[in-house]
């Protein structure tokens, strides 16, 4: 016992951390090198050593080999996934079948399929008009409007939401305005927006922005509020300044909710954009669809609708993908990602 204790004292001065008053950079350096050294000596001398702790086996590091890659790909085709894919095919197939049968037999039971184009007509429309310049330009313009409106909403909504969520005073200042503006649907902004902005393009982007902004803002605020207070306290006593706390704790901690806001915001942005394009637009997919209606070009109406559907799907898919890339830890979170 006595010899052990003295051995400890001899080993101790190596840990010089207490010689430096501030635990900042300089203080941290010495232990960095020595922890392993003291750890090794202690393990050798102290009977109660870390080595005794039953540590579960680490997961084997996968080595790259072709058979393994193939096998892992095969393993991904599980029963579960096959069923999921089959059900997806059935549900989409049923929709097309209903459409096909409805137009083939010209169903008339309250809803009227009389003027609805057949799937084949829409397909022809796609191959003829669809790949024309006009159609593609319309898509490009809509996408540009969405991206502009959405990213402006994101870059105002997220920081403002973080600040409102964190500071009572900011909340007191902004929330009354938010509460009044929020119930006004983006479409109701169309006349005001046309008056407000110098050109048509800006007013449509503005309406898209309004649509995306509130879901992003409110979900960000909610994200900050649902952050566990103990994490903030932990960060504080690890020396996080106010700014670093925001960047390293509050932002990543609210990220799951922010992404919920982004997904919802993107959906509402599309709704608002299409409505705005239909009412006031030149160009854009919404305009394309409405114009087709005015020109009694029925297949083009359906083509426009399907295009909108695909664009919306692609946008929310991208958001989900970026989300899972930025938040890999969610795959392990209790309750899972679904």
């Amino acid at each position, binding site marked *: *016992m006595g010899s*052990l*204790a003295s051995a*400890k*004292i001899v080993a*101790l*001065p190596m*840990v010089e*951390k*207490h*010689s430096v008053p501030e*635990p*900042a*950079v300089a*203080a*941290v*350096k010495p*232990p*960095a*090198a020595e*922890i*392993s050294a*003291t*750890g090794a000596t*202690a393990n050798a001398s*102290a*009977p*109660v*050593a*870390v*080595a*005794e*702790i*039953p*540590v579960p086996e*680490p997961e084997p590091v996968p080595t790259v080999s072709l058979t393994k890659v193939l096998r892992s790909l095969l393993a991904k085709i599980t029963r579960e996934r096959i069923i999921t894919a089959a059900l997806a095919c059935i549900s989409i197939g049923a929709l097309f079948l209903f459409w096909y049968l409805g137009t083939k037999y010209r169903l008339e039971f309250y809803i009227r399929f009389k003027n609805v184009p057949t799937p084949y007509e829409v397909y022809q429309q796609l191959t003829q008009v669809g790949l024309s310049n006009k159609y593609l330009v319309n898509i490009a313009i809509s996408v540009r409007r969405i991206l502009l409106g959405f990213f402006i909403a994101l870059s105002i909504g997220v920081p403002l939401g973080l600040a409102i969520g964190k500071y009572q005073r900011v909340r007191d200042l902004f929330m009354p305005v938010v509460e009044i503006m929020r119930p006004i649907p983006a479409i109701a902004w169309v006349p005001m927006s046309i008056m407000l902005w110098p050109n048509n393009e800006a007013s449509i982007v503005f309406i898209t922005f309004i649509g995306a902004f509130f879901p992003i803002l409110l979900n960000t605020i909610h994200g900050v509020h649902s952050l*566990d207070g*103990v*994490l903030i*306290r*932990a*960060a*504080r*006593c*690890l*020396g*996080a*300044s106010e700014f*670093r706390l925001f960047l*390293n*704790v509050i932002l*990543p*901690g609210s*990220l799951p909710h922010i992404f919920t806001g982004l997904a919802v915001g993107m959906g509402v942005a599309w709704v608002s954009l299409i409505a705005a394009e239909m009412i006031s637009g030149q160009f854009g997919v919404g305009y394309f669809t409405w114009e087709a209606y005015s020109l009694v070009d029925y297949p083009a109406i359906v083509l426009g609708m399907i295009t909108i559907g695909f664009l919306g799907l692609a946008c929310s898919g991208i958001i989900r993908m970026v989300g899972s890339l930025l*938040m*890999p*830890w969610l795959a*392990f*979170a*209790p309750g899972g990602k679904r």
Partner: protein
Amino acid sequence: MTMAVAGTETNKGFIDVRDMGVTFGANDDKVVAVENVSLNVQPGEFVSLIGPSGCGKSTLLSIVAGFVKPTLGEARLDGKAITKPGSDRGVVFQQYSLFPWLSVRKNVEFGLKMAGVDQSKRNTTARALLDLAGLLSFENHYPDQLSGGMKQRIGIVRALATSPQVLLMDEPFGALDTQTRVVMQEILTNIWQQFKISVLFITHDIEESIFLSDRIYVMTARPGRIKAEIKVPLPRPRRAEMTDTPEFMNLVQELKGLIREESLAAMAPEIKDRGLSGFGMKVGPKGVGEIF
């Protein structure tokens, strides 16, 4: 115990709490959580704080950590009044407090990152600490992939990464099962001996407080005061077998007696307030004894 440390230059990490009083709320909802508490932790000493639920243990720890300001008195670290949280005091919480979005290693690096230490230095320090905790092979896992005991071990080394002078621990093993607890206690003693750091440790568990500490403060029921201060003369290093020795047993008995009184005192007011008829019972001629 403090003698060994005095030989080295580690005379830092002296916690001094004087005439501390904490009152929450005002007027009608006023709660006196802590009253007239004085306690200290010498540099390199392991001190436990034990007492009935709600007696203000966490409140005291929050003051030393810098989260709460006392109503009366003050807390000092090495002579300097404590006003806000800082990395000179490592804190381990009862709840799991790892950042779920950071890998295990990045969690341990967090304090160093806040201090502006560069990436490669952070990396080596964190890996050395994880090795110490026996969790190096989990460095790239996320906290949600770990068991409760692993999370708390990481919580401890994360708090140590910035080389704090003191470690404040609020029932860190409270959520763990008995087996894991025992292992964690041995790990903690091991780490404490290597770092020669002052520890203020809060617990409900009498055996745990004896096994770990040099000194134990027993608190009264709310409002919390210091009821007794008990030295633990057991030799170091402590081993699991020591819990069967008569010295250990005697200390357990002594503490049990002290705490039982307080636990009863903590419950009594509520029982009195409600009145015994509140339990749907009649107070018999022999009084309360008949009912209990």
